[in-house]
């Protein structure tokens, strides 16, 4: 019923507009086209000024309304650099925005049609052209300079002490892997992936380096003030590790690992206090269209102190232990044969791949 009403109101409104529009055309013809045109011109000239003033006030108001909602302080060193770059850019473009919009609408208003005005025949002026080629060029050089300085800092090599975590995107979730005690990630091969056998990354069990690798889903732990390097993979389509609080982002591309590093500055607990939100979490959003569940592909980053991290890690079982849980004596032999066949198979494949 309400749908019907809305449609009826729309149609009515449209009919009224149409009648007014038609009538005004007749009036224009009666009044003389010139006179009608001059009147329309004055109205639109006035509206130009209204729009300019209203627009600028609106921009200011909108800024006031939303500035508190845009995530607050960056939670990583890189993020702070990015925020600085953002403010530099806003300052420069903001000035240009205000000046050019004012000139545009003010000129439109000021030079609206008048019978008395004689236009100024002004086809070109090389000096002016030169000025507004050089000034933007200088402004942009400044922006490029700052931008590249930060860009190289952010994309440069991660510090040696950085903690390494492997991130793998899949439809629709995140898998994280820590290298374990040996500090090396064991080999993996995608054809070994088998969610049913607890091997979501396709780890090659005959590589002993895999045996202590810890694999967790959805939640990743990082240490505050310690650089972390993410090695990013995808199992199926392109995903993207989006960390808006840290201002970081990197695609997860199947077959082509990417990396990203940053240093978290605040623990999750500290952020809860800073944001006055007891439920605060750092969220990982997938920022590259990846299918029907794209919008549900959430992960959580827990930034904790070094002590808390050690405690957490001690509680995690390596993936190997989960894939081959401490067997009952009778089943032992079969289990091992399965493992053995899987691993020889996998070795053969990984060798053939090379």
């Amino acid at each position: 019923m309400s749908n019907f009403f809305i449609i009826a109101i729309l149609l009515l409104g449209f009919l009224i507009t149409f009648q007014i529009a038609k009538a005004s055309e007749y009036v224009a013809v009666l009044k003389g086209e010139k006179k009608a045109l001059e009147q329309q011109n004055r109205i639109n000239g006035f509206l130009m000024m209204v729009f300019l003033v209203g627009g600028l006030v609106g921009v200011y108001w909108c800024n006031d309304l939303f500035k508190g909602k845009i995530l607050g302080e960056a939670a990583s060193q890189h993020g702070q650099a990015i925020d600085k770059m953002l403010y530099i850019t806003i300052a420069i473009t903001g000035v240009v925005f205000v000046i050019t919009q004012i000139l545009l609408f003010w000129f439109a208003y000021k030079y609206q049609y008048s019978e008395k005005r004689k236009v100024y025949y002004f086809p070109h002026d090389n000096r002016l052209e030169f000025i507004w080629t050089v000034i933007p060029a200088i402004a942009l050089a400044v922006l490029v300079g700052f931008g590249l300085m930060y860009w190289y800092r952010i994309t440069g090599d991660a510090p040696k002490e950085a903690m390494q975590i492997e991130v793998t995107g899949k439809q629709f979730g995140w898998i994280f892997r820590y290298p374990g005690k040996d500090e090396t990630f064991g080999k993996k091969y995608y054809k070994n992936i088998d969610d049913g056998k607890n091997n979501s990354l396709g780890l090659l069990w005959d590589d002993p380096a895999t045996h202590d690798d810890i694999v967790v889903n959805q939640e990743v732990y990082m240490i505050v003030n310690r650089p972390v390097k993410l090695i990013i993979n995808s199992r199926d389509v392109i995903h993207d590790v989006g960390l808006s609080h840290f201002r970081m982002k990197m695609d997860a591309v199947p077959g082509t690992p990417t990396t990203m590093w940053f240093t978290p500055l605040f623990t999750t607990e500290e952020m809860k206090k800073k944001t006055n939100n007891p439920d605060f979490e750092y969220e990982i959003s997938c920022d590259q269209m990846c299918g029907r569940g794209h919008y549900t592909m959430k992960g959580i980053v827990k930034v904790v102190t070094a002590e808390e991290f050690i405690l957490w890690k001690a509680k995690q079982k390596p993936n190997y232990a989960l894939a081959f849980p401490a067997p009952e004596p009778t089943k032992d032999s079969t289990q091992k044969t399965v493992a053995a066949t899987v691993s020889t198979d996998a070795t053969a494949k990984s060798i053939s791949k090379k």
Partner: protein
Amino acid sequence: MSNEAILHGHSEVDTSHDAHHDEHGAHHHKETFITKYVFSQDHKMICKQFIITGMIWAILGGLMSVLFRLQLGYPDSTFPILEDIFGKWAKGGKIQPEFYYALVTMHGTVLVFFVLTGGLSGTFANFLIPLQIGARDMASPFLNMLSYWFFFLASVVILCSLFLQTGPASGGWTVYPPLSALGDANEGSKAGMDYWITGMALFVVSSLLGGLNYISTILNMRTKGMSMTRLPLTIWALFFTAVLGVLSFPVLLSGLILLLFDRHAGTSFYLSDIFIASTNKALPSEGGNAILFQHLFWFLGHPEVYIIILPAMGLVSEVMSVNSRKPVFGYMAMVGSIFAITVLAFLVWAHHMFVTGLNPFLGSVFVLLTLLIAVPSAIKVFNWITTLWKGNIRFTPAMLFAIGFVSLFISGGLTGIFLGNSTLDIHLHDTYFVIAHFHIVMGVSAFFGMFCGVYHWFPKMYGRYLNNTMGYIHFWVTLIGAYLIFWPMHYEGLAGMPRRYLDYSGWASFNQFGDLNKFISTVAMIVFSVQLMFVFNFFYSIFKGRKVTTQNPWGATTLEWTTPIRPGHGNWPGEIPEVHRWAYDYGKDGREFILQTEPVGSSESKH
């Protein structure tokens, strides 16, 4: 090829009808309904075919955005009427994820390619090139006709894909593989994607036929005295648009053909190391690279945005000069900046890929080249503003849209400086900031350019005026609405809110914008309904609009206004006029305007 040869191709028949010839001028072969309205070779009719097809697509594409805005603005509400119409796609009155992603994808595809490329270039290149350079028709009217009919076929294929059981393509308009290559990963990547590729291939053919024709017409068929530097800026813009299209569309096609092979021929150009959870299978493909597709795609994709915006710039320059009664400021600088934009358009594509794992050094080169584009763009803006300065402005609806275009182009152009800077792109990539940026700078701006052109040249197309009052309402609601919709989206983007999400309620970081989304959706619906009013105005005025009574209603200098009010095929009844001056002699020596056809007087001042 000479101008006369085109229409006198049938001269064996025609020369015997001299008396007839005098009566109807160049309009002399017998026309049936089919040759006049359907398989027409008259560039003016082809223009009308393009614009009407474009309008149908614009309504459909706009409607898609209204549907997904409904979901975004009112994520908790149900609309039973949607289930009545769309069945399983809107089960329970809620837009399903597959439907949402199909809508988003097709909205982008339709508006970028079928409306703002086909509808905009197709319309105005066809209409203005022969009329403004002084030619009877295009270099090859037959290829021109084919260009429309390939466009039509492409439209039919894409339209059919909307009715597939598995839905149309739904991996985003950029169709990145592997998502677009694997039907098991995405419903829309089943048959829908094949239709998409076929439709786009036909579209590329159409665009190439059209583009080659535009280029050869502009280079070869200018009337006597029409040197390149006397061309109106519209023609320059359309010329470089065609060059961009001809050089970049084939690259897209090659990328799509490789994608087709990956889909059906078992190749692995883009596929590597893929395990599909839904079928629990690892694909055999190894060694491909998904990023390769992005390079191929954006090698067209970036020039594509200039293919969209350059014609709008050309139309705006012309309309602004005519209605300021003042020459466009810095003609050569305008041409130079279009040229610079065209060259740079090919050298910036990887700025869409800063966060794909691109080599950071390569990234920095693309930052430099990308921000360089801001220089010619700034020159154009300052030149438009100076064109207004000390003019005598008539606010026709066309002129209002021209001014609105400049305002939007400034706003959207400046946010491009944010995104082109790789440092900021890390945070802003694929957020609402990007949506706000490109909708303002190429979506709405290009529409404003198109409206500006339609309001200005409608009298030439149909011999009648569009209704002014509806034009004014259309302009103000659209301008204000566009800012209300897209300006606040920048803030959502600064918060990192990702694009292409069905629902933000599960996210603590992004769900603070619920009210704003509702507001945006409401405004979007109002703006959409005002566009319908424009469509009504368009069709109503074709038949019932106020008639044009003078040959040159706007007091313009260019050649199209020297033709009869309703020109026939061949445009000028007699000889094609000769050109003696540039296109922008407004307000010179105290005269309001001087037609291009008027010889330069001995006492005339020089500039």
